[in-house]
C-alpha cells in the first residue's frame, strides 16, 4: 500500500534536483551585490517554503486524524512534521550562512521571515518531546494531533505578527518571485520543485519503512500468539508512533487506500 510509486518518485526527484543544481551553477547569473553566495538563496528559500508547507500539512493531517480516529493519519502527520523539522534545520543553517556572507553576522533580526521561522521552529521542536512524554499510544497520537493543529494555525499568524513588527533596514531579498529577472526566476522555480519532490519522497520512504515495521511486528505477535500482559520490548525508545493496530491496518488495506 505504501510502497507504490516510490521508485518513479525517487527517479523524478533525482532528475529535477540535478536539473536544479545545474541551473544554479551554470545558468543563473551572478547577482551584482552578493556574488556567488547569493546562490544559496536557491536552496534556502525553497527549504523554508517546503518546511512551512509541511508543518501546515501536518496540521491538516492531524485534523483528519481527530475526525476519523484512523492512526495512519497520525503517522502521516508525524512524518510530515518530523521531516519539516529536518528541512527547518537546513533552512536555519543556510539562512545563517547567507546572513554571514551578506551582512557579516550569523544572525540578523531584520529579516522577518527568518525570525518568524525561528519561532516556528522552536515551537515544533517540542513536538517530539511531547510525544515522548506520553506513554499511552492512543493518547499520544491524540495530543500530538491537537498540538499539530494549534501549531499549524500558528504558522501563518506568527509570520504576520513578526512581519508587522519588523522595521526593514536591509532590502528584503526574500520578496516574491515577481521582481526576479527571468533566469533567476526559472532557477528558483525548478529548485523549489526539486526540494518539494525531495520532501515528498523522503516522507514516503519514512512512511513505508514505518508501516513495514509495524506489519512485521503484528505478524510476529500473531505467530507467537502470545497475548500476555507484558508489552513487547522495544529496543530503542522513539517518540514516533510505532504501531498501527492490526484491525486498523486491515481496514486500511481493504478499503484500498492509494498512494501516500
Amino acid at each position: 500500500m505504501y510502497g507504490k510509486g516510490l521508485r518513479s518518485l525517487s527517479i523524478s526527484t533525482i532528475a529535477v534536483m540535478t536539473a536544479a543544481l545545474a541551473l544554479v551553477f551554470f545558468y543563473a547569473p551572478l547577482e551584482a551585490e552578493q556574488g556567488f553566495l547569493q546562490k544559496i538563496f536557491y536552496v534556502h528559500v525553497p527549504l523554508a517554503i517546503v518546511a512551512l508547507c509541511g508543518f501546515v500539512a501536518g496540521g491538516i493531517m492531524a485534523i483528519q486524524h481527530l475526525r476519523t480516529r484512523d492512526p495512519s493519519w497520525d503517522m502521516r502527520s508525524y512524518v510530515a512534521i518530523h521531516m519539516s523539522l529536518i528541512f527547518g534545520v537546513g533552512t536555519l543553517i543556510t539562512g545563517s550562512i547567507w546572513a554571514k556572507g551578506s551582512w557579516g553576522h550569523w544572525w540578523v533580526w531584520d529579516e522577518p521571515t527568518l525570525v518568524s521561522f525561528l519561532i516556528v521552529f522552536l515551537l515544533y521542536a517540542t513536538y517530539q518531546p511531547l510525544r515522548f512524554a506520553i506513554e499511552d499510544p492512543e493518547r499520544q497520537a491524540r495530543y500530538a494531533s491537537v498540538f499539530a493543529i494549534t501549531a499549524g494555525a500558528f504558522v501563518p499568524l506568527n509570520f504576520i505578527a513578526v512581519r508587522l513588527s519588523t522595521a526593514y533596514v536591509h532590502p528584503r531579498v526574500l520578496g516574491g518571485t515577481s521582481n526576479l529577472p527571468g533566469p533567476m526566476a526559472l532557477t528558483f522555480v525548478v529548485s523549489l520543485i526539486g526540494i518539494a519532490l525531495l520532501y515528498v519522497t523522503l516522507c514516503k520512504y519514512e512512511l513505508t519503512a514505518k508501516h513495514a515495521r509495524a506489519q512485521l511486528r503484528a505478524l510476529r505477535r500473531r505467530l507467537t500468539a502470545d497475548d500476555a500482559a507484558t508489552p513487547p520490548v522495544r529496543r530503542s525508545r522513539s517518540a514516533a508512533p510505532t504501531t498501527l493496530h492490526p484491525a486498523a491496518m486491515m481496514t486500511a488495506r481493504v478499503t484500498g487506500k492509494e498512494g501516500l
Partner: protein
Amino acid sequence: MPAGALEVEGLARHYGERDALSGVSLSLAHGQTLVVFGPNGAGKTTLLRVLATLLRPHAGSVRVLGSSLPDDAWAVRGRLGLLGHEPLLYRELTARENLRFHARLHGVGDERVQELLDLVGMDGRSREPLRTLSRGMVQRVAVARAVLHDPELLLLDEPHANLDPAAVELVAPLIGAGTDPARPRTRVICSHDPSGGLAEADVVLGLRAGRPALLRTAADVDPAEIAELYR
C-alpha cells in the same frame, strides 16, 4: 419491553499493541448485579471505566442503559455512578464543599448533600478539608459522591477497600442492591473476595489477561473456580 441494563458484544480495548480487553460479551438485566473477578491487570478496571463512559471502546458494541457508547455517552452520564480506586474528590476542599460541587454538576439540590452526609456519618466532620481526614472517612465521602444523584447503574471498584466493618455496614444500604422494585438498581462490582462477591452476584464474570474466562449466572458458579482465575 425495556432493553437490558447492559449489552456488551465483542468489546475490545487495546493499549498500544497490548490488548487490555478483548472479546468481552455479556448482558445484564435491570436490577441485577454483575460481579467481576480476576487478578490484577486482568482488565477489570478497564471494563468498569468503559462502562462508565470514561474510556472509548476500540472494537465491539456497548450499550449502557439503552444508549450506545461512545456516540450516545452523553445521554447516560447522569444516570450512572462510579466508585473507583481514586476518591475523585479535592483534598483541599471540605466534604461538604466537595459534595456540593458534585451536586451542582449533576443538578442535585443541597438537601441531598446533607442527607448523604448524615447517612455516611460524616456530618460532624464535614467542614474540614479532606486532607485532614483518614482514608476510611474519605472513602465514605466518595461513596456519598457516587450515589449523590441516585444513579440507575452503580459501578463499584472494590467498594469495601479502606472501610472498617462499621463503615461497611453504614454504606451497605447506599451501594447495595436496590429495595424499590419501581427503581431497579443495576450494579457492576469488581471484587477480590470470592465468597463475599459471589453472595451478592446474580451474574459472574471472570477475566484473565483481558479475556473472559468465566461467564455464568452466580448460582452455577463454584468458589473454587473463582480461585482458579487467580492461579
